[in-house]
């Protein structure tokens, strides 16, 4: 396997514009002769499908939900970054690029990250033109706020529902193209395999989640925008249906999986309350703009938080990081929450929580102002916990949120399989080892609206694509493979439920491949995952039948894939013997508990090639060396 990043020559600022000039075009009358499959309808998939269809390609769009509007991008709360510098506080494209690459602990590709910052401004224009109701100032212009990891206000937002509004913009653009007949929409369909003909991605196999039918779809290119794999941890902030299946099946067909160990743990989630719990709810990071994070100084102090005087409160982020305070990036905030809880200062019934306190902000600005900024978040918190955050501090704890790893892609967002493009959270490319707040929405839309439409066209114009139909033997093989997998799951007929396996896998992942990792734990995790996987295939019970609406069967397939991916995540974390961003190896930290990178040996993208899974997962490591021509690698410091 060869990893050719295809980064264009030239200065950083000109790479993308030069590349656009070099890109081959498909004539309008030829575009309609080409079919493109887009899997997923979130910010990346929805915007890609809409834009490709608008250009004139025949787009076939697939999602597992009952409507394209329900993709999990809808749940993103805080905002979307752009280097518009509307607040005139000194922001530039370079600064946004620099913050992103530094925030990712120098483990992303310079050229991709710069392009992301460059495109950011266009995204805001596009969204506003679509009628996305961003927050505005009284003068009628767009409002901005600041977000973790940044010292400028570059985040555009629509109350606490920015993801929803941006997603609806992309969804509406998609529905317009459905109306025009340029998109063929398939909801409640799950991609189960990728079809490769003559070494190129030429189609997919899906299961109709209502009828259970296995179906074949042909195309000239496949765009995968199927999201991240955080649900490997069972409890996470991801929607329950978020899964890795489409990406994992592509990986098993030859697409390299890059940096699987880079998992972002979000610092501001509502803590776990019991073992029946199905998911964790994130509270937007923007809350840390006004909320102060603290724990009681005395271990086991069980007084009501409002009865603990200031001098007995430990505002640990403000004390340790005076320059950024409560706005340190997510990995730093998460790790520090774990540290104070490990030291016995955690609060709440489980001791695994810290306070996020709005008392001072309410005193300073008034309840009305705080309510305007965060009202819906406060309501959500009260709804879930039964406590009123206007009256007492919120309790928060870190939770798995976003995966920076994903399928490896080159500068054109093409995977190691020609014709298979990967966009949004499903690819690995722009965030490195850690993602800054308000950057996920930016990347999804940048990939979908402004990169994929050009690079897919370049591929189509530049590639000999023979006639293929769905009767081709490669389609037969993939369809049989998908059917065989389903039959196998239904035939085990054991006595343990899918959810029990998922929960057990999640516990292993959280304990040993979570906020911090060490060699011994990772080795143990690999063993435990293997034996859990073996047990799964002997004892799982999947009720119901294949030719029917069967949610348990859907989940069983996804958990089976998580049981393989989990091993790769641990393997990747074990081999990366350094700390980088969200990957903290306990063996490599400074005296203050900060992550210590090893740029000499690990300044590369780890791209894994699937070999086999038979008892153990066999993967071969390939390295894409990261070269930093334009930025100087520095130890991150937020002090």
């Amino acid at each position, binding site marked *: 396997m060869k990893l050719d990043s295809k980064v264009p020559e030239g200065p950083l600022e000109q790479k993308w514009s030069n590349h656009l000039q070099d890109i081959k075009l498909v004539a309008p009358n030829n575009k309609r002769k080409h079919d493109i499959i887009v899997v997923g309808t979130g910010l990346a998939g929805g915007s890609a499908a809409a834009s490709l269809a608008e250009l004139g390609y025949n787009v076939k769009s697939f999602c597992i939900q009952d409507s394209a*509007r329900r993709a*999990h991008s809808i749940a993103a709360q805080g905002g979307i970054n752009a280097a518009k510098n509307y607040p005139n506080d000194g922001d530039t494209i370079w600064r946004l690029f620099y913050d992103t690459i530094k925030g990712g602990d120098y483990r992303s590709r310079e050229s991709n990250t710069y392009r992301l910052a460059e495109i950011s401004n266009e995204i805001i224009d596009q969204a506003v033109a679509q009628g996305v109701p961003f927050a505005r100032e009284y003068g009628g212009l767009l409002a901005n706020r600041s977000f973790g990891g940044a010292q400028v206000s570059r985040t555009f937002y629509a109350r606490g*529902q920015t993801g929803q509004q941006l997603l609806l913009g992309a969804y509406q653009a998609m529905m317009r193209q459905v109306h025009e007949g340029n998109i063929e929409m398939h909801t409640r369909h799950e991609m189960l395999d990728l079809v490769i003909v003559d070494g190129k991605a030429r189609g997919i196999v899906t299961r109709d989640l209502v009828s259970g039918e296995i179906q074949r779809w042909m195309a000239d290119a496949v765009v995968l925008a199927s999201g991240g794999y955080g649900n490997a941890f069972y409890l996470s902030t991801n929607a329950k249906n978020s899964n890795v299946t489409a990406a994992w099946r592509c990986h098993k067909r030859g697409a390299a999986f890059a940096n699987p160990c880079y998992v972002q743990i979000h610092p501001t989630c509502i803590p776990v309350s019991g073992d*029946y719990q199905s998911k964790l709810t994130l509270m937007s990071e923007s809350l840390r703009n006004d909320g102060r994070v603290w724990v009681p100084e005395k271990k086991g102090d069980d007084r009501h938080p409002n009865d603990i005087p200031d001098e007995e409160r430990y505002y640990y982020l403000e004390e340790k990081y005076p320059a950024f305070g409560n706005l340190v990036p997510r990995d730093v905030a998460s790790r520090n929450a774990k540290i104070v809880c490990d030291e016995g200062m955690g609060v709440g019934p489980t001791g695994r929580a810290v306070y996020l306190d709005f008392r001072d902000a309410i005193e300073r600005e008034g309840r009305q102002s705080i309510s305007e900024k965060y009202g819906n978040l406060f309501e959500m918190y009260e709804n879930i916990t039964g406590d009123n955050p206007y009256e007492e501090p919120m309790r928060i704890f870190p939770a798995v949120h976003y995966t920076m790893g994903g399928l490896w892609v080159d500068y054109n967002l093409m995977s190691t399989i020609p014709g298979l493009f990967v966009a949004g959270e499903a690819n690995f490319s722009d965030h490195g080892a850690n993602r800054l707040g308000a950057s996920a929405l930016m990347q999804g839309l940048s990939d979908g609206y402004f990169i994929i439409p050009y690079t897919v066209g370049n591929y189509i114009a530049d590639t000999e694509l023979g006639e293929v139909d769905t009767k081709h033997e490669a389609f037969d093989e993939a369809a049989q493979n998908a059917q065989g997998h389903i039959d196998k799951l239904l035939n085990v007929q054991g006595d343990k439920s899918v959810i029990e396996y998922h929960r057990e896998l999640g516990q292993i992942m959280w304990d040993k491949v979570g906020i911090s990792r060490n060699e011994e734990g990772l080795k143990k995790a690999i063993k435990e995952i293997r034996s859990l996987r073996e047990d799964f295939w002997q004892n799982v019970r999947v009720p*119901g039948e294949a030719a029917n*609406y*069967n949610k348990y069967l859907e989940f069983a397939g996804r958990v089976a894939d998580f049981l393989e991916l989990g091993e790769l995540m641990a393997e990747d974390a074990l081999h990366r013997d350094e700390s980088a961003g969200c990957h903290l190896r306990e063996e490599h930290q400074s005296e203050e508990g900060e992550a210590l990178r090893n740029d000499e040996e690990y300044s590369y993208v780890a791209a894994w090639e699937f070999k086999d899974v038979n008892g153990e997962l066999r993967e071969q490591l390939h390295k894409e060396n990261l070269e930093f021509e334009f930025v100087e690698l520095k130890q991150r410091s937020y002090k």
Partner: protein
Amino acid sequence: MADTFTIHLKIWRQAGPDEPGRLVDYTLNNVNEHMSFLEMLDVLNEQIVAKGEEEPIEFDYDCREGICGSCNLMINGRAHGPKALTCTCQLHMRNYSEGDTIVVEPFRAQAFPVIKDLVVDRSAFDRIIEAGGYVSVKTGSAPDANSIPIDKSVADTAFDYATCIGCGACVAACPNSSASLFTGAKLSHLNRLPQGEPERKKRTVAMVEQMEEEGFGDCSNFAECEAVCPKGISISAIAEMRRNYMKATFANEA
């Protein structure tokens, strides 16, 4: 520790769209006040799977944080249950107590056919959006975002309507199964903004007519939709929709 209690459930079971449905009784012990309603159903399903006598209950859900609009249950006859401004996934069992009987049914409307058990097909909503619920803008050609100032109060009101999650509670609660709140909300969002102005009449007529074609009933001002809307969308959207529709059709400018 949280209090645990026992509840009785009557749940709509229906094997497929053309099969007859019926309410089936279940009793669940050890219900914890912190559970969400859907987590309670998960626990019940685990028991059903463990017994192995029948298939688990199918219901729609995804984000479980009240924003995706997937979950859609009639709980004791009310869409999304007893709590105002709340989706089923955010309804917690602390709203119930020992010995309660809860009837759980799918959202009912001619335009929302049942797929299985509590799962219904709401794709009619997508077709209403498809008819005109967008601003026709091409990727990459938009003017600078600050080139059109929009009065804060206009933007805020547009946002209030834009928060619709398309769950369909408005339809389920309406005696006429009208989709007017859903359609009106999208129209009030887009029609109000300068970006949406050029297509205002065309959009209004197309969406209203699609809504009728899908088999949704007329609005008779019962306001049940507003009462159950998890996002608190005001029925003034419906009045606006009618005004715009009348203007567009009488002026024959559509």
